[in-house]
C-alpha cells in the first residue's frame, strides 16, 4: 500500500513526535526525583541518614585564627591548592576606632583572609591604638534549610541529605556554575581538576563513620562545635552550646535559613 503524504498526516506525525518528546522528559523527570533519593554519597553501607541531624556551630570568641582547620580541610578533602579554592576559611575582622570628633560608634571595618587564613595571619597594618576590636570568623557551608544552591542546580546534582548536609554529586554535576552564583556566602567553587562544583560536605565520609569533621578534630580552642541533634550524647557539646549562647546566622534577610550558627558575632560580619 502506498502511503499518502498529506499535510494532515505530516502534522499528525509532527504532533505525535512533539508529544512523545514532552511525555518522555516528564517521565524521566519523575525517575530522576526517585533516583535523587538513591544518589551516591560517601556514606558507608548501612548508614541511615534519617536517623541523624548533623550541625556545626561556631564560637567566634574562641577562634584564634591559627588556620589549622583550613589546612586540615584542604588535606582531608583534597581541596585544590591555590588561594582561591576553599571549603572553609577564616576571616579576620578589624574594627577601627571612630575618628576623633566623629559621631559614629565604630570606625571603618577591615577584613582580610590571606590564603584563606591557612597560614595564620600577619600582624595587622593598622596601628594598635586605632583598633577598637579584632576577631576571627571561620566560614564554611551554612547548611541552609532553604539552600539557593540546591534550588538553582539545573540537574539536581546538588541536594539536601535527610541528615542536614548539602552535597554535590561530582559524577552528575555538569559544571555550569549556577549554584556558585546562587550561594550568597561564597562557599562554593569550581574545582579546576574535576570541573565540577565543590563545597564543604561536613566531611560526610567521616561523620557517617562516627568521626568528627577534620576541621573540628584539629581545632585547638574548640571554636567549632559539632554534633548530632537526633542522638545527643551525655553532656552534649552542641546542645550545651545552643542553650548557653545567643546565636546568629549569616545574612538572615535572604531567607536561606542557615543552620550553621555563630555565637558572639558582631554586626559587621557578612
Amino acid at each position, binding site marked *: 500500500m502506498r502511503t499518502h*503524504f*498529506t*499535510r494532515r498526516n*505530516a502534522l499528525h506525525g509532527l504532533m505525535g513526535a*512533539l508529544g512523545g*518528546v514532552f511525555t518522555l*522528559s516528564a517521565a*524521566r*523527570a519523575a*525517575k*530522576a526525583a526517585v*533516583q535523587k533519593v538513591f544518589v551516591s554519597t560517601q556514606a558507608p553501607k548501612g548508614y541511615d541518614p534519617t536517623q541523624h541531624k548533623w550541625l556545626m556551630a561556631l564560637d567566634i570568641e574562641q577562634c584564634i585564627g591559627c588556620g589549622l582547620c583550613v589546612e586540615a580541610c584542604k588535606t582531608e578533602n583534597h581541596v*585544590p591548592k*591555590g*588561594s*582561591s*579554592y*576553599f571549603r572553609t*576559611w577564616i*576571616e579576620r575582622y578589624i574594627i577601627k576606632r571612630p575618628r576623633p570628633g566623629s559621631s559614629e560608634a565604630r570606625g571603618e*571595618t*577591615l*577584613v*582580610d*583572609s590571606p*590564603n*584563606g587564613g591557612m597560614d595564620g595571619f600577619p600582624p595587622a597594618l593598622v596601628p594598635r591604638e586605632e583598633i577598637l576590636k579584632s576577631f576571627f570568623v571561620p*566560614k564554611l557551608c551554612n547548611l541552609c534549610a532553604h539552600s*539557593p544552591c540546591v*534550588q*538553582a*542546580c*539545573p*540537574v*539536581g546534582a546538588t541536594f539536601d541529605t535527610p541528615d542536614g548536609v548539602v552535597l554535590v554529586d561530582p559524577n*552528575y*554535576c*555538569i*559544571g*555550569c*556554575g*549556577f549554584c*556558585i*552564583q*546562587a*550561594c*550568597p*556566602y*561564597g*562557599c562554593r*567553587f*569550581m574545582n*579546576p*581538576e*574535576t*570541573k*565540577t562544583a565543590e563545597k564543604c560536605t561536613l566531611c560526610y565520609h567521616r561523620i557517617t563513620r562516627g568521626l568528627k569533621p577534620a576541621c573540628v578534630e584539629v581545632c585547638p580552642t574548640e571554636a567549632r562545635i559539632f554534633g548530632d541533634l537526633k542522638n545527643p550524647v551525655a553532656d552534649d557539646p552542641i546542645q550545651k552550646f545552643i542553650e548557653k549562647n545567643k546565636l546568629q546566622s549569616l545574612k538572615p534577610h*535572604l*531567607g536561606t535559613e542557615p543552620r550553621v550558627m555563630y555565637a558572639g558575632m558582631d554586626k559587621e560580619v*557578612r
Partner: protein
Amino acid sequence: MALEMTNSIPVALMTHIDGYVYPNEQHLLWSVLIVVYPYVTGLVAGAFIMASLVRVFNVRELEPVYRLSLLTSFAFLLVAPLPLLFHLGHPERSLQVMITPHLSSPMAMFGFVYTWYIMAVLLLELWFDYRKDFVEWSKTETGIKGVIYRLFTVGVNDLSERSLRLDARLAKGITIIGIPSAFLLHGYVGFIFGSIKANPWWGNVLMPIIFIFSAIVSGIALCVFVYMTMCWIRRVAADDHCLDAMGKFLFYALVVDFAIEVLDWVHRLYEAEESVHVLKQLASGKLFYTLLVVQVCLGTLVPFLLLGATQLFQKAIAMAVRRRIYFTSALLIMVGVLAMRWNVVIGGQLFSKSLRGFTTYKMELGGQEGWLVSLLLMLLPFVILWVCVKLFLPARPALAENAAAASAVVSRV
C-alpha cells in the same frame, strides 16, 4: 602574581583585589562566553518580534524584511546554545538538563524553552511561510539546490488556493504563539540573573523585563543592519519606506527600554539598600567605560537623539542622511546592548557578595573561555545567515517576485 589553573592551562594571572572578597570569588566564574549567550538569545527574540510586526500587526511597510528577519532569528537561534555548551565544565553531560531537569532551577528550563522555540515556533513558521516556494523551486532548480528544496517540501506538493490560504492562516497562528514564546525565551534568560538573590546587581524583579526590551531593541537594530548590508552587497536600493518604519520601531523600542533601565536605577538609588554603595562604586569605577560611556552614552543617548531627530524632522532630513542615521544608530545600539550584557554578567561578578571589595577580570585570548571563541560564536550566525539568504532569499527577480507575492498573501490573511 599567582599561578592559577584556568581551564587546566596554567596561566599567570594578575588578579587585583580592592578591599575584601571571599577567597572563592577571586576569579570570575562566568566569562565572556556567558556575555555572548544572552546577547545572541536577545537578538533571536528581537528579530522574531520584528517579523511578527508584519504578520500579526500587519505593518505592511516592513514586508521587505519579513523573511530576512525570520531567517536572522533562525540563524542566531542555531548558535544560541553553543556559548552555554562551551562554557560547561562537562559539556558531555549537557543532555542531563533535558533528561533529568531539576524543575526548581530556571536554568533547567533552557532545554524546553529552546526546543519549543525552535521546533514549535521558528521552524514551523518558516516552513509554512516557505512551502509554496519550496514546491515551486523544487520544480525549477536542479543539482544540490534542487535536492535541498525537494527535501524541504517534505513531499507535500499541494499548491491549491485552499491549501495556500491554510498555510498563511497556520503561519499567522504560529506567530501569535511565537510572540509570547519570544518573550518567554528572553524573559527566562533575564530570570536566570534576576532570580539570584545572592547578588544584588542581578536579583531584581525588573531583570526579565529589561532583558526583553533590550532584546527587542537589539533585534530590530540587527535587522536594520542585516537588511542594509544585504542590499549593499546585492547592489540594490533598500526600500525607503521599510527603513523609515524600522527606524520608527527602533526608536519606540529604545525609548521603552531606556525608560525601564532608568526606572531600575532610580529605584535602586531611592531604596538605597545595604548594597547601594558597592553598586554605585561599581558603576562609576569598574564599569565606567562599559556602562556609562558605551551603554548609556554611545549605545542609548546618541541613537536616541539621532533616531528622535528622524522622527521629529523626517521631512527636513534627506533620505540619504536618514539611511546613514538608521545604519549608524543600529550599529551603536547593537554595541550598546552587547555592553549591557557585559555589564550585567561581568559586572555582577566584579564585586564581592561580602559587599566589601572588588576583583578584576581580564579576558583571555585563547582557550575555552577566551575572546577568540566568543568572537567566532558571534560571527557564526552571520555565516549561517549568509547560507540561508543564498538558499532562501534569492536576489533573482523572478524568485523575488514570488517572495513578494507570498508576503502579499501573508498580509491579506
